[in-house]
């Protein structure tokens, strides 16, 4: 069948691009699967090995991602907290690919995705099979207790869909990730992604159109669609931050801690932008 051939082709593409330690990388991807090839959250290794091929290609040949400081990510449970930008959530996919391709030992990571996602046909299935899940606190808690690496974007769509003039300015952070970190005693690794802002500069957000289609936003970019341009990505991983305190503290107390994380990401962003010579190279 055509689909099987396509799946096989993608799969061998994936393994050819993974470079050294292919088996280890595949082992890092695999989770506890049942006789039907899925883990309880719906992740499927077979599906993922085919599905990640385009992502690895984008990582290596399109966005030509450079990673810095990935060795700082501790083993066991960890929250990766990143800035979010670029209209399409490519930044999440690229952070995931860097954890798989550059971390030693390779690691699979789950991103907490928007509640909008399960309402989208095909996207919802794709996300579940590659191990991405809806960002409810219960899901996050369960996975951290399983010693998994979780990526969160505390800006949410506020960051993803912001307009060009606001590039590399962190938007308001949600507090939920901090409550979870305190509750589950999880270290936080601040992550700065540079290059995603320029992949699809948004001039305006056509709000009535977004409302009509049920999208979080409807960006108008120079190319018309939010199609990502081949900007070079640079991903910076910061030193892990450990917080102590009560998870059910007042918002004001949590905001102080969240500010520390936000400042760490902003300073990595500023330093990264100063260091880069060109958006595309």
């Amino acid at each position: 069948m055509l689909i099987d051939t396509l799946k096989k082709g993608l799969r061998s593409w994936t393994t050819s691009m993974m470079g050294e330690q292919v088996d280890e990388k595949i082992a890092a991807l695999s989770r506890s699967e049942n006789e039907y090839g899925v883990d309880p959250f719906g992740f499927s290794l077979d599906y993922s090995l085919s599905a990640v091929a385009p992502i690895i290609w984008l990582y290596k040949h399109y966005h030509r991602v450079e990673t810095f400081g990935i060795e700082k990510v501790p083993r066991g449970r960890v929250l990766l907290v990143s800035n979010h930008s670029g209209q399409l959530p490519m930044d999440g996919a690229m952070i995931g690919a860097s954890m798989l391709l550059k971390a030693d030992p390779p690691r699979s990571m789950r991103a907490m995705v928007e509640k909008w996602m399960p309402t989208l046909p095909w996207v919802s299935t794709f996300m579940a099979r590659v191990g991405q899940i809806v960002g409810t606190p219960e899901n996050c808690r369960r996975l951290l207790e399983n010693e998994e690496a979780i990526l969160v974007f505390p800006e949410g769509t506020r960051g993803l869909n912001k307009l060009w003039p606001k590039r590399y300015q962190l938007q308001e952070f949600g507090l939920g990730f901090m409550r979870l970190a305190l509750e589950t005693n999880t270290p936080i690794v601040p992550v700065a992604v540079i290059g995603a802002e320029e992949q699809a500069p948004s001039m305006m957000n056509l709000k009535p159109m977004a409302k009509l289609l049920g999208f979080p936003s409807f960006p108008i970019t120079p190319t018309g669609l939010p199609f990502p341009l081949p900007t070079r990505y640079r991903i910076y991983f910061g030193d892990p931050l450990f917080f102590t305190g009560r998870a059910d503290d007042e918002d004001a107390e949590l905001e102080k801690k969240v500010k520390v994380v936000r400042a760490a990401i902003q300073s990595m962003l500023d330093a990264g932008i100063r260091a880069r010579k060109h958006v595309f190279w």
Partner: protein
Amino acid sequence: MTDKNQRPAVVLTGISGNLGRCLTKLLHKEERIIGIDRRPFVGKPKDVEMVQGDLRKKKIEDVFRRNQVKAVVHMGILHDPRMSAEDHHSFNVLGTTRVLDCAARFGVKKLVVLSSADVYGPSPDNSNFLTEEAPLMAASRFPSVRDLIEVDMLAHGFFWRHPAVETVVLRPVHIVGPTIKNAPSNYLRNRRPWKLAGFDPMVQLIHMEDVARALAEALTEGRKGVYNVVGPGAVPLSALFKELGARPLAIPHPLARPILGALFKYRLASFPPEELDHIQFLCMVDGERWAKETHWQPAHSMRETIRSVLGE
């Protein structure tokens, strides 16, 4: 008058259903069983006493007056979307109220109520695994199931108001079995079932016999509380079709609801359109609490559970 010579009895409401008959088989050798159901009990074992009648009727109290009842398993709860909402509501809510009232007045020591994991309701906002503390949201998208939520809440309320009675509320996932005629089993028996194009949610199934075992386990002395009960795990909907050799028909979701709505209205479909949520979104539960406290292991494997709808 209470017959002093008789052993204390276990009352099973809804005994004539698939689950009731299954539970009877597990219990009747050890316990004295009294069944209550509107329907006759076909193939009733000789040692089972049967009272044919409506749970809503005052007459049902006689069962408790004339016998010493030590435990009640309440399974007499309707799940029939074809029935009028009023009848459905009346039977489930008034029936459950009567059972609870009898349990409180006649000194029953143990009450087991069969609720369902459906009370949480499928939704795009759901966590992958809902615990017993999750709010019961099913009626927000599917108002005609609110009687099932009310039954659960009545039992829940009873648990707190009557601490002397050991109350157990079980919320099993979709029950399937060879002769079961509920929505999930009927759906899976379809050779060309509908699916929603691009949606393939994870689903949990449990075999009818495993639910009967769980109900029997719930009768153990000392056990009380609200529990989700899961079977052998979770699989994507597409895996069920593959296992059963069904060839699903992919319908775009914006069209499926109006089409199914019209078909249901004219009695050409047996599912109301709200049921589509179950094949679009997650409604999975965390069965850890029950599994840990009772060392629960389903007897049927995933494959057996899925294939059971075919009568194997």
